[in-house]
């Protein structure tokens, strides 16, 4: 067992964002639509007014829409922009695309997941068998000039004959993703820095391993010995984790399995305000800029509301939660 202790990796969200997220960084957002989004880190990125970010996501929701809405994002590679019933299409994303204020390149979920997998395995590209002859292949969102930038693949994807097949079997080749930064919210981090995600991991593990810098926000920091009693359940070894941010409710208003459900009341509030620019500015002022850190944020959400979404340790969600 190494004497590795979390030590100087443990820091505030402010410090992690200041140190590891420069303007223009390519960022992979962990989580999926309304589940386990790295919201505390996203709020801090907005607070620090980061600019020209290049987001890479499969299916993303609240964190992506907040960053796009706050004008932090210049370019995004994405498969699905929505938050289930609470936003069939992510509202600020939709507005930005329709106003031409955002460079978008569309892929499918499996394609984006394979691109992260390829990056996590040190492979330059990955084959895929989905989307032949669709506009995902034929139409381009990024301009030719963007294609010359370092973190942008020089081609969106390619089609190729399968050299191991005598017939006409074809594959698409997808450029791998190696993001500058991956943001992951996990339930547990050991005091040696190792992370354990409970419930569905989506593509967080591939994103985390593909990234140059990995920031993990978490609900709890626990003795490493506890996590080492069942290492099968731990996904991210400490030497891959660059920064750990203790952030209870750090995924709010999205869900965190076994800790809290998604928060319908807040998601409806977001939906109500995101529809027009003025109301959205008020939302940002009230829930991001006007708040110095996550404790104020949670005070503002209020304990009674937090209790309504308290997840059962058995089911992992809040049984009987009013979700209308």
């Amino acid at each position, binding site marked *: 067992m190494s004497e590795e202790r979390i030590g100087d990796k443990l820091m505030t969200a402010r410090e992690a964002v200041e140190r590891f997220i420069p303007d223009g960084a390519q960022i992979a957002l962990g989580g*999926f*639509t*309304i*589940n386990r989004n790295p919201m505390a880190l996203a709020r801090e990125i907005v607070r620090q007014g980061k600019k020209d970010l290049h987001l890479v996501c499969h*299916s993303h929701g609240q964190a992506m829409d907040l960053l796009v809405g706050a004008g932090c994002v210049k370019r995004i590679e*994405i*498969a*699905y*922009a*929505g*938050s*289930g*019933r*609470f936003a*069939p*299409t992510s509202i600020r*994303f*939709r507005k930005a*695309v*329709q106003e*031409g204020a955002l460079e978008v390149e*569309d*892929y*499918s*979920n*499996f*394609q984006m*997941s*394979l691109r992260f997998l390829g990056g996590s395995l040190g492979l330059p590209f990955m084959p895929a*068998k*989905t*989307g*032949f*002859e*669709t*506009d*995902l292949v*034929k*139409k381009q*969102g990024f301009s030719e000039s963007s294609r010359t930038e370092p973190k942008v693949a020089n081609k969106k994807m390619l*089609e190729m004959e399968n050299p191991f097949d005598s017939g*006409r079997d074809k594959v698409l080749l997808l450029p791998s993703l190696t993001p500058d930064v991956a943001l992951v919210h996990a339930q547990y981090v050991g005091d040696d820095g190792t992370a354990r995600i409970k*419930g*569905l*991991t*989506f*593509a967080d*593990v*591939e994103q985390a391993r593909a990234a140059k810098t990995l920031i993990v926000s978490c609900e709890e920091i626990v003795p490493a010995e506890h996590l080492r009693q069942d290492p099968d359940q731990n996904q991210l070894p400490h030497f891959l984790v660059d920064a750990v941010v203790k952030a209870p409710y750090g995924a709010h208003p999205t*869900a965190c*399995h076994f800790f809290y*459900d*998604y928060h319908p009341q807040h998601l409806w509030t977001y939906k109500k305000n995101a529809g027009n620019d003025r109301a959205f500015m008020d939302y940002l002022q009230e829930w991001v800029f006007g708040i110095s850190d996550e404790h104020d944020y949670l005070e503002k959400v209020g304990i009674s509301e937090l209790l309504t979404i308290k997840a059962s340790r058995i*089911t*992992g*969600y809040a*049984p009987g939660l*009013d*979700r*209308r």
Partner: protein
Amino acid sequence: MASYTDKEIMAISAGRLIGQNDVLFAGTGVSMLAATVAKRVHAPNAVVFFETGGIDPSLDELPLAVADPRVMYGSCVNSGLIEAFAILGHRKLRTVAFLGAAQIDSFGNLNSTVIGDYNRPKVRFPGSGGGCDAASLAHDTIIFMQHEPRRFVNELDYFTSPGWLRGGESRMEAGYTRGGPMAVVTDLGVLKFHSKTKRMYLAECYPGVSPEKIIENTSFELDVSQAKETRAPDERELKVLREEVDPQRLILG
């Protein structure tokens, strides 16, 4: 004869298309209802799984998105996205994927990305998500649509997910190894695809809906010669849907 809403007959009609040992790839909304009611009424051995990796969950409460923690409870396996898509396309599984879209053409190809020019669209939708993957890899797909002329179009604004491409053998020639849409379930009836030409035709009209009404709501030419009337949802199907699957009417509305 019990009364029922559009969503109810859509969910139930789709549910009837499910085979005993199918593996159902459920999306959100009506497709979630269809997969769950199919399992409870028609195919108890069918397995519902979600593209996020929740496989065969208990579904005590209805998930409102494929990433809803409710897809993770009581499941036999909680995997990652990649494993879920591997199952979707697994050659030894009869996977049936439920899809929705903004537009559909006469060969069952779908658009869930934009209306207008891709680089400066009039309307932006969420995008493919797992739709293109499901349409590419599943053994069969069932598509849910509101039956309106602006949705049943001659030409898609953006081609997101593959149906039968240009008809005939064009799907297989393009590189796909299997699959293709089995049916389109709308609020007016059920449409299927001609076995040779792969062009859409009207298979069923819901009670009280005339083939003409369906033609009016379809921009492309539609063969209605084989249309029969759908058997109305029966007591048991409605009871399961309303009392067990979506008691809070979260999706039924």
